[in-house]
């Protein structure tokens, strides 16, 4: 028996609540520094194009213009955010070089005395672009002859030699041939914005000792510091990141987009530099939740037991992979849902297209798997003539089961959770269903 708890388990008031509701909490852009400059981005108006030339001459004449940054100013311009943990290849351009791969891709950073001067100068940069054929559909992107988005030659992220994250468990084809019903579905979802109240932002401040203090609303201060260190090719000991208070993240502030350029701008100008997304940048060029297309084929016996599931999923990563390759891995580990299915085959593709890059978002790889699986469960119930509660109890996983990715189930409380929901809404369950437990497979009544 665990010892009695004193503080854990109590609804103590949140420590930052008063500050949040009275407007006294300091968010990133509430900081201001004397001489602070503003950074704004010249973005690609094309979905896919060659960059033939950049003419800054009019922009440079805008009063308050300080300087521009292009890819030649970025010490390590091609990076991959998950490179920190060994994900390859390096593929995203901090500032575009000879090609832009999505509408909104950064090409030039403008640094100016005021936000309005920076925006004025951005509007006066003339780009010479040659548009290229673009691809926007995940399955079209994987067909032979499709425009190749990446600089390294494939529209499918490669998982140790495979173009998809695979799960193979049992023999789905054999199980399909013995199944009484085959239930199939195709599930499509569109990209979604995190829509935080506070937009992505940072302020980089050069200190007298040669270090840079970066005030940021990143969800991960060390992840941002370490990626900034790589991109700027400076030792981590010159960077001091301060954060911890975020006005909504939902996964959208795990990318490292604003900190490297703001810090570079502070290095080049020796002045504090603020780089904050406008609302339209947050909506239109910040990472989204991937669009998904998920094909599910289930083999079901007449009594409702699912004996085989085959899933082919495509997540639209947009022009760069960012965090999406890992979302597919997480998806592959959860595409069978909280159910015990003895034969499972999953192919989960992270696909490059000319859309704005996707990245992490709340439910990372699983939200859309849950949508597809749980609609599929209702279709299965209908096919075998069971109600939607019974079909879930019948197939629920239990402690001691093995998941398709070969992890032993040890926290299976699905049955208890469904039973509690039935009580909450007043849905009468049969004694047999009320007597089920996740703890073991010894079936029996109360």
């Amino acid at each position, binding site marked *: 028996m665990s010892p009695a708890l*004193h*503080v854990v*388990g109590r*609804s*103590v008031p*949140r420590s*930052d609540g008063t500050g949040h509701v009275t407007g006294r909490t300091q968010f990133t852009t509430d900081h201001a520094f004397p001489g602070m400059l503003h950074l704004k981005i010249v973005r690609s108006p094309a979905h896919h194009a060659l960059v033939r030339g950049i003419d800054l001459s009019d922009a440079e004449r805008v009063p308050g213009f300080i300087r521009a940054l292009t890819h030649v100013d970025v010490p390590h311009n091609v990076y991959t955010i998950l490179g920190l943990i*060994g994900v390859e290849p390096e593929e995203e351009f901090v500032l575009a070089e000879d090609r832009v791969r999505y*509408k909104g891709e950064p090409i030039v950073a403008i640094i100016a005395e005021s936000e309005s001067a920076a925006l004025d100068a951005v509007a006066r940069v003339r780009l010479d672009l040659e548009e290229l054929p673009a691809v*926007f559909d995940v399955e079209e992107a994987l067909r032979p002859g499709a425009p190749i988005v990446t600089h390294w030659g494939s529209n499918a992220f490669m*998982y*140790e030699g495979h173009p998809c*994250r*695979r*799960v*193979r*468990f049992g023999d789905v084809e054999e199980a399909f041939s013995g199944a009484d019903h085959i239930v199939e579905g195709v599930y*499509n979802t*569109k990209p*979604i914005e995190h829509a935080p109240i506070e937009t992505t932002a940072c302020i980089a401040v050069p200190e007298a000792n040669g270090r840079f203090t970066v005030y940021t609303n990143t*969800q*991960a*201060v*060390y992840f941002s510091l370490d990626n900034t260190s790589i991109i700027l090719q400076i030792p981590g000991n010159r960077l001091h*990141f*301060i954060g*911890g*208070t*975020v006005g909504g*993240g939902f996964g959208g502030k795990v990318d490292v987009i604003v900190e490297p350029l703001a810090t570079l701008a502070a290095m080049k100008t020796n002045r504090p530099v603020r780089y904050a997304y406008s609302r339209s940048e947050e*909506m239109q060029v910040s990472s989204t939740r991937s*669009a998904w297309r998920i094909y599910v084929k289930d083999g079901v016996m007449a009594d409702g037991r699912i004996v085989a599931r085959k899933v082919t999923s495509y997540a639209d990563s947009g022009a760069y992979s960012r965090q999406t390759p890992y979302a597919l*891995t*997480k998806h592959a*580990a959860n595409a069978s849902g*909280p159910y015990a299915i003895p034969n499972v085959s999953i192919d989960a593709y992270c696909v490059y297209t*000319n*859309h704005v890059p996707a990245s992490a978002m*709340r*439910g990372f790889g699983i939200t*859309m798997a*849950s*949508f597809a*699986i*749980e609609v599929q469960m209702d279709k299965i119930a209908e096919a075998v003539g069971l109600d939607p509660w019974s079909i*879930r109890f019948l197939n*629920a996983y239990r402690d001691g089961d093995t998941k398709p*990715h*070969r*992890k032993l189930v040890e*926290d*299976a409380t*699905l049955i*208890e*959770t*469904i*039973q509690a*929901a039935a009580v*909450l*809404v007043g849905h009468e369950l049969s004694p047999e269903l009320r007597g089920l437990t996740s703890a073991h497979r010894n079936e029996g009544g109360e």
Partner: protein
Amino acid sequence: MARLRGTGISAVNYPTGMNLGGDPSQALIHATTSGSFVVSLSSTDLGQGLRTVIGQIAAEALGVGMDDVIIDTADTDTGPHCMGTFASRATHRVGNAVIAAARETREALLDVAAEELEAARDDLEFDGQGNIQVRGVPDRAMRIADIAAAAQFKYGRTIAGRGAYMKPRSPVDPETGAMDPDSTEAHACTVAEVEVDTETGEVTVLSIRSAYEVGQQVNPALVRGQIVGGAWMGMSHALYETTKPYYPDPDHSPKDFSEYLMPGAHEMPVIESVVLEYPSSNGPYGVKGVGEMTANSPIPAIVNAIYHATGVRVDELPVTPELILRGLDARAAAARG
């Protein structure tokens, strides 16, 4: 034309944490002269209340009150490493690191308390109310604040502790997908009730009623905050949101909140919930993770409820009025033969 009502359910699991590259967080604790305990971290509060729940875990593990815990987080010059706040990991990972740091801190306190109370170290216990006492003898007790002061001014010792927690990296077998990608699983079952206007195709969500199994709750009010916020977000994903209304066509992206549709306060349905607590084996005090999951189960529950109400199966998100009206038209045409 009619307003049709329907009910749909969904049941989901959700994993805590991740495996890619290892998943560590660390914590350092030290006592001040007045007996406050500074918990140094590099973890981020996204607005969900991480500072509060970590403060609770620190207070519990140190055996002091919440007022004596100072959370100093997300300054890379002072805080030890944290992977970040995502993957429903922070309470689990950071909480475990804080408990480990508190354990070491308590050892340092006991060393001093044994001398001050002239008692064997093994005979001492924390009372959970800010004191260390000789086991079973409340008269022979000393305030932790006084022990911390004595450590610094009488004995010249640090009262400090280090803690780390890491889910080790689990490489994925590229052929079979074998992997150990998470630490524990939370669960949810949602029942959604909707009303569909067959003339406009509009869906009104009437209620979202859910059961959650989240392990030990650290702060039930903050769990409830995640439940209500997650229900709203799931409803918004199901019926409203996208940056590409004509996806895969990339055009017509919204620029602001007047073009990017989300439900307003007046569209919030009845939200009721019950929370079960089956402790995890590896979380702090049996914690799992509730952060992400609450947005997931409402989505299929709402979509299934729309089918129950109308007979229209929509297999794409968001479920717009146009999709429902086209589905109703197709059903009417099929019925006419």
